[in-house]
């Protein structure tokens, strides 16, 4: 299959090249980069009308306090279409997704809202957030517990590791960090700064090194020094590339081999992520056996509602949430508080 793609691409490119050459023969001008270079932007921006500003802005403005209106709805029997619309709007805006929203609306239609709409919605959401949230810090005797961190680019994996290392060290455990992100420029430097800041040990290799070997080294050293646990970073990767996911599976296998034992695999997820998070979680679960989610950047305006669907559909619990830049701003997840914040959108 891969070979076919390559052959197709070659044929395709030759064909395109042919077109290009023909075009050049016809008119030389288009080939010169200067000639093709764009000219005016600023004026164009000024001229361009915005989509349909006022009405949209008004709509958004009204939506901010929309859940206050939900709260004030104290319908007992069937809800009106308008009430359902308000609920739908709040849910969709907090990124819980079409499927979850539809489910909750169906519930409301069927059972009504005897204790008020807000409570009914809250209860429906909490029903989806019932997974076990405990965190494992110990391995079988003689093995070093490993926490592995996975996720797409830019969600805050390295920062999360720094913060969790701090927590563990404060709890009296010795920690070793494995700089398994050997792809992004200066990722290991970033982790090293965290190591210095928190007093953890770190094992790193040069850029482009095999992440598996970094993790392997870290485990060897951790076992030799009797370190209590290893936190292993990995490079951010998009979840639709089989090769990158295979590489991740390999890192996990290495980390799970004697003397190591992977006791937690955290998928770090950015609260601003929308519906794509669900497919991310699905792929990472298959590749690395994810045991929990760390939801970061919850201190912004994003709600991270998609974790409801992830926990309901895939059974992956959220274990930590990041609510600020400070080292202490990574806290244990609490469904009640989370749902309230969703509905406050």
């Amino acid at each position, binding site marked *: *299959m891969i*070979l*076919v*793609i*390559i*052959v*197709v*691409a*070659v*044929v*395709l*490119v*030759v*064909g*395109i*090249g*042919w*077109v*290009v*050459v*023909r*075009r050049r023969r016809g008119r030389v001008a288009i*080939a010169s*980069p200067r000639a093709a270079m*764009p*000219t005016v*932007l600023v004026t164009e*921006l000024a001229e361009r009308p915005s*989509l349909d500003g006022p009405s*949209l802005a008004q*709509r*958004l403005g009204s*939506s901010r306090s929309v859940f206050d209106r939900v709260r004030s709805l104290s319908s007992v029997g069937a809800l009106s279409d308008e009430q359902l619309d308000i609920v739908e709007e709040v849910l969709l805006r907090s*990124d819980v*997704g*079409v499927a979850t929203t539809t489910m909750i609306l169906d519930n409301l239609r069927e059972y009504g809202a005897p204790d008020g709409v807000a409570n009914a919605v809250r209860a429906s959401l909490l029903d989806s957030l019932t997974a076990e949230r405990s965190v494992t810090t110990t391995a079988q005797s003689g093995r070093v517990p490993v926490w592995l961190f996975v996720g*797409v*680019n830019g969600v805050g994996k390295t920062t999360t590791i720094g913060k969790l290392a701090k927590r563990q060290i404060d709890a009296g455990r010795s920690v070793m960090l494995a700089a398994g992100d050997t792809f992004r*420029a*200066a990722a290991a*430097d*970033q982790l*090293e*700064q965290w190591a210095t800041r928190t007093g953890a040990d770190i094992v790193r290799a040069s850029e482009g090194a095999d992440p598996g070997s970094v993790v392997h080294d870290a485990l060897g050293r951790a076992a030799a020094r009797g370190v209590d646990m290893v936190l292993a970073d990995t490079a951010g990767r*998009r979840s*639709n*590339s*089989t090769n990158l996911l295979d590489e991740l599976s390999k890192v996990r296998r290495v980390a799970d081999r004697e003397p190591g034992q992977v006791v937690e695999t955290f998928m770090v997820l950015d609260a*601003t*992520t*929308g*519906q*794509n998070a669900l*497919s*991310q979680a699905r792929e990472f679960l298959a590749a690395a056996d994810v045991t929990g989610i760390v939801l970061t950047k919850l201190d*912004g*305006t*994003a*709600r991270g*509602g998609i974790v409801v669907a992830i926990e309901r559909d895939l059974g992956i619990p959220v274990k930590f949430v990041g609510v600020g830049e400070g080292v202490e701003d990574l806290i244990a997840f609490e469904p009640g508080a989370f749902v309230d914040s969703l509905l406050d959108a």
Partner: protein
Amino acid sequence: MFDALSERFERLGTSLRSRGRLSDADLDEALGEVRAALLEADVELGVVRAFLDAVRERLSGETLSQSLSPGQQVIKAVHEQLIEVLGGSALKVTYASKPPTVILLAGLQGAGKTTTAAKLAAWFKQQGRQPYLIAADLQRPAAVEQLRVLGSQIGVDVFSEPSRPIDVAKSGLKEATRLGRDVVIIDTAGRLAIDEALMDEVRSISKVTSPHYTFLVIDAVTGQDAVVTARAFHETLALSGIIVTKLDYDARGGAVLSARGVVGRPVVFASTGEKMEDFELFHPDRMASRILGMGDVLSLIEQAEQRMDSDIVAEGAGRMMSGTFTLDDFLAQLNQVRKMGSLGGIMKMMPGVTKEMRSAANNVDEGELNKVEAIIQSMTKRERREPVIIDGSRRTRIARGSGTTVSAVNQLLKQFNEMRKMMRQMSGGAMPAMPGGMGRMANMAAKAQAQRGESLPPGFEALGAGMKAGAPARGGGGKNKKKKGGRVTPPKQR
């Protein structure tokens, strides 16, 4: 990119096409489908509503064209509205009359600002400018280091000093002027829109550097929050445009539609991969076609113009036509393919490429291409000219020489032969009937060219047929030609 969205639109198109007349109920259902598609693609709710209202208006307002079926009317309206929402036409950069032209990048943490800064610098360099990078992200550990590494990769100098971001920006700008650089790109720390202290900081950076362009860098996987972020940054910085990153992720891309819809600023650049060259001007009209599954041949041609060595390609194309294409030529063309960026990216721009092929192309990495190269390089010159002489023992030798297996060598030879056979048929002048999307590409291109007031370049038939040649080989022979059809059927008359 936008895969999920285009997939739903494609399905919608298929179901609508089969109807003769469209009742109000049909229309409601169709628009309901559009709504769900947009929401699932993370388009912001307010933007979705505005979008649907506009589409409805288009459908009711204008006199319905007699030549279009009702289904085509809906698709046409959606397509036009998509182009409008995405921003009309592509960015045109004006350079400051008194250089340097200053560009400020801002955004949330993890959106990809630092990488974007480097890619943008590389883009300007390619345009014949002398860019200069200022690393004013002193917040994230090692962010400056990251930009330094990327800068050295693309051969662009990076300025930074351990002081305050605003001072870094100021002295960096001075340094750029001294060095006579004509484009300056300032990378700032990621910040939350509600963090007033940091928003003040970026505002003052903007004040002292008075940038000609301020771009918001936003992540394509962002959900409903994209709008809140975009609005907040726009209020603080008066954005001139948006740069979308990580468009190579599966599905979604609603952030693009939403941010543009709310702040009324166009998306100007899109980053579509991890390589430095996976970065391009954003063309709304082409993106709209891509969302609707119509492919994007024009972008592909432009990329080819910029990156490929035309002599080598022309030679290869000539040999292909005359049926004397050798494995040496194949190798030379393969290297041209590599210059085009990732295979996945190329496939995305092709109309009519099935989802399976796209995802397979996504997974072809450098290693696979290296393997093919190694196999060919392990052949003698004569073998490359006359692959027929490669017998069992030669195959074993080649496999050993290239570190692959005999079956890999066999596969390559078989594919190569298939390809040559198709080439010969084509050059014989018999252009096979082309069912399905691949063949339609030629039509698309013709249309696209016509729109620009140009005539179709004569090579295009060959291009369409060329794709055809590769495609059937997928099933091991020309058996499943039909299979390629049906997925993508752009409206016939527009």
